[in-house]
């Protein structure tokens, strides 16, 4: 284990709500975690589990009628809740950067790459256009883009999807942020490109001491990339721990279900030589408007009891391994992904 460092980001009981006609909907419910410099945190969940919104909350980009209702977000000890719009703007793209899922949509189609990069530098630093262009070219070179000078003059549609995502990553790296939030940035890419980009992101963040939050639904990605994992379900973190702890000895029945429904976990053929059928979690993830009281996973859980009608407390099963469940699975039941 590394020596304990001061975490880059501490999120404490963060709650984000949406006001609607039928009352407030809680999309992110008392989420707490922290990320250290150079650490990669995997935030795993199905769509609608609140993982992306957690990212947008940290960036102060929750659109009305949504708002951060409670909790605190501290970046290097500085409380971000209650910052003015101006202070948020100064922070975004400078100290905290974000990468989005679909590289085809994130770059502005009618602006050249250099325009979109230079404006990011000049929004935060008093440098001339030429100096900003130098920085942009260096950033493109760092993410492995060949002949960056040429690419700077290109428009997004002249680049492939993988290349565009690299440009987006280069934009995120431009101002050497303390934290990068990556929202499923490789989901839309080919598997080979995905592997390259994962590897490069990991190396870049390690080297520069940038904390990285990697939002994904793909446990296979997390296994190869993250130091620690948070599993989200219906707005809550149901399990959190080191990657080895969560993937090898899952304590929450939901985590176990996710692992079982990952194709890689079932790749071993049985004795007859046939691949084992995928298991799936019965039922559907609840919509935010009808999250069950108590443990939200209760209706889909084979272990549920009357006890589960209460909200389960966070229980520390091993150092750093926390699950919110009344019936945590014994460690021996784990599987290797």
């Amino acid at each position, binding site marked *: 284990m590394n020596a304990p460092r001061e975490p880059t980001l501490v999120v404490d009981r963060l709650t984000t709500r949406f006001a609607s006609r039928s009352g407030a909907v809680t999309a992110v419910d008392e989420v707490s975690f922290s990320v250290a410099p150079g650490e990669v945190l995997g935030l795993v969940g199905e769509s609608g589990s609140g993982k992306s919104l957690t990212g947008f909350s940290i960036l102060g980009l929750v659109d009305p009628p949504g708002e951060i209702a409670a909790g605190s977000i501290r970046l290097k000890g500085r409380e971000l809740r209650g910052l003015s719009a101006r202070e948020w703007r100064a922070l975004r793209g400078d100290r905290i950067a974000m990468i989005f899922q679909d590289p085809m949509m994130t770059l*502005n189609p009618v602006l050249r790459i250099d325009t979109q990069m230079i404006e990011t530098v000049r*929004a935060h630093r008093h440098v001339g256009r030429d100096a900003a262009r130098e920085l942009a070219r260096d950033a493109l070179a760092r993410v492995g883009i060949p002949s960056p000078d040429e690419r700077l003059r290109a428009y997004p549609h002249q680049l492939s999807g993988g290349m565009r995502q690299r440009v987006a990553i280069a934009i995120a790296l431009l101002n050497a942020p303390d934290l990068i939030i990556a929202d499923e940035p490789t989901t839309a890419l080919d598997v080979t490109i995905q592997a390259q980009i994962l590897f490069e992101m990991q190396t870049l963040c390690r080297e520069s001491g940038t904390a990285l939050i990697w939002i994904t639904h793909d446990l296979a990605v997390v296994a190869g990339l993250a130091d620690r994992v948070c599993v989200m379900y219906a707005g809550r973190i149901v399990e959190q721990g080191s990657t080895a702890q969560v993937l090898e000895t899952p304590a929450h029945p939901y985590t176990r279900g996710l692992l079982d429904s990952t194709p890689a976990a079932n790749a071993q053929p049985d004795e007859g030589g046939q691949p084992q059928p995928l298991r799936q979690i019965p039922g559907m993830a609840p919509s935010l408007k009808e999250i069950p009281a108590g443990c939200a996973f209760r209706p889909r859980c084979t272990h549920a009891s009357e006890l589960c009608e209460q909200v389960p407390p966070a229980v520390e099963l091993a150092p750093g391994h926390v699950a919110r469940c009344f019936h945590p699975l014994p460690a021996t039941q784990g599987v290797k992904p």
Partner: protein
Amino acid sequence: MTLFILRRMLQAFNVLFVMSLLVFAGVYAIGNPLDLLVDPNATAEDMARAAASLGLDQPLWAQYARFLGNALQGDLGNSFIHGVPALGLIVERLPATLELAVVAMLIAVLLGIPLGLWAGLRPDSWSGRTIMAGSILGFSLPTFWVGLMLIMVFAVQLGWLPASGRGPTAEVLGVPISLLTADGWRHLLLPAANLALFKLSLIIRLTRSGTREALLQDYVKFARAKGLSNARVVGVHVLKNILIPIVTVVGLEFGSLIAFSVVTESIFAWPGMGKLLLDSITQLDRPVVVAYLLLVVTLYVVINLAVDLLYAALDPRVRLAGASQ
């Protein structure tokens, strides 16, 4: 690029040819201009002489062949009524119409885009709703009625602005222009506002819907995540994307402003081309009608060409057909 423009010109000639054929036959079908031109008490010999002098005694195909032959040499014929070249008659009126159209379009664009942006950014606000309600009025009120109301209020009751005519002009290279004199501006303001109202409403609605759509796009979210100021996100990232449909509509509407502002020109007695066209149609003055429509087609072709070139400048994904070969 050159190839693209050449190809466009070739297409334009085809359009002009078909257009002239249709108009020629159309006006011929409406009635015989001799009935209007010649004194009802004239003798048959007088009629025949008049017909021969205007070339109307020939069969239609011969008349058209003669017109086409002259047209290829730049002569679109003389007006039946005024006896002077039809094209000259029209070009004489062109500056008046052109400056009216330009000022009206400027009003529509310079007010419409900011108002539309504002309404798109604050769709639920009091001001945004007011702008949209106003644009519905601008759409649905008939032009002639608005023109009359403008005259009633600003000319008759308040007495601020003149109700009709063009006022004094200043000559630039032999072209009379109202815009250069203060009194000319005062004469121009009411008809231009009248013409601008519909276009303004159109641009407001286009800009607003474009803005609302653009704001939902990932590139806007990404721009915000980069920490850009609101002014830059809206003024550059949003505006440059929504300008593309706006440029198309502005181009088309500008063409129709020049060609068909007949109603407004009649109400404000503006000595433009619209009024000339109306008079020529009622008098069956075929050369003027044909020349007018040919000029209008040419104008449309030029404007559309400008729109396409602007397109390519605004949207890097657009490649002009033939330009990249």
